[in-house]
């Protein structure tokens, strides 16, 4: 729409922002796999686990930074709202949920504990059960937090697509 011609306003940025966000998820996996294969081929011991993790974190931080810069103000508003009302409360709800699951009603807690021990054994003792338990707990907290973040983010956009107020 060149006929309008307001200087300094070129389009296309929001699409790039969404692609960057997608890139965090899609690109993290090959980075993790590539680093793991490389580290194992070098027989790097515990670093075979740590290095891929650092690579994925660095990748995620970079893409998050780029995505944030490319998002428009509506997109940023939605993310801020989702962090405040989704990720924040989600972390607290998740932390309490994990503690309840692990320590309170034993049928559930025991099954989670057995799953963690099974996972640790499957890794051939590479991870002590305590370490595996810590990572499973952390993953559960992050997972629940992320689910609530996405749910609130979707609600924010859904409310703004309902038509005239």
């Amino acid at each position, binding site marked *: 729409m060149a006929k309008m011609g307001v200087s300094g*306003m070129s389009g296309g940025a*929001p699409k790039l922002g969404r692609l960057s966000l997608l890139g965090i998820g899609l690109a993290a996996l090959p980075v993790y796999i590539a680093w793991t294969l490389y580290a194992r081929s070098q027989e790097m011991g515990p670093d075979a686990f740590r290095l891929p993790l650092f690579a994925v974190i660095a990748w995620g931080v970079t893409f998050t930074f780029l995505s944030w810069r490319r998002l*428009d*103000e509506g997109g940023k*508003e939605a993310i801020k709202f989702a962090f405040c009302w989704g990720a924040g409360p989600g972390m607290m709800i998740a932390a309490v949920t994990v503690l309840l699951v692990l320590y309170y009603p034993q049928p559930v807690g025991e099954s989670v504990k057995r799953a963690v021990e099974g996972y640790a054994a499957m890794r051939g003792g590479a991870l002590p059960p305590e370490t595996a338990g810590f990572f499973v707990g952390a993953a559960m907290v992050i997972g629940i937090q992320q689910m609530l973040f996405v749910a609130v983010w979707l609600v924010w956009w859904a*409310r*703004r*697509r309902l038509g005239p107020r």
Partner: protein
Amino acid sequence: MIAEAIDMKNRIRVLRAEKNWTQAELAKELDVSRNTMNAIENNRYDPSLSLAFRIAKLFRLKMEDVFQDED
């Protein structure tokens, strides 16, 4: 003192129709997503002051000719 929040409404949909522009074209020119443009048009999202000025400038109008107090 004006303590209550002010409900804003805007004439973007009408102005856009007069110019025969699509929502996507307008969004592209303003460097925002079509979702954001749609939310603004439907009065479900109040744009920042900066974006509001850019919208007014695009239609070659004053800000108050595009955005008004709903009361």
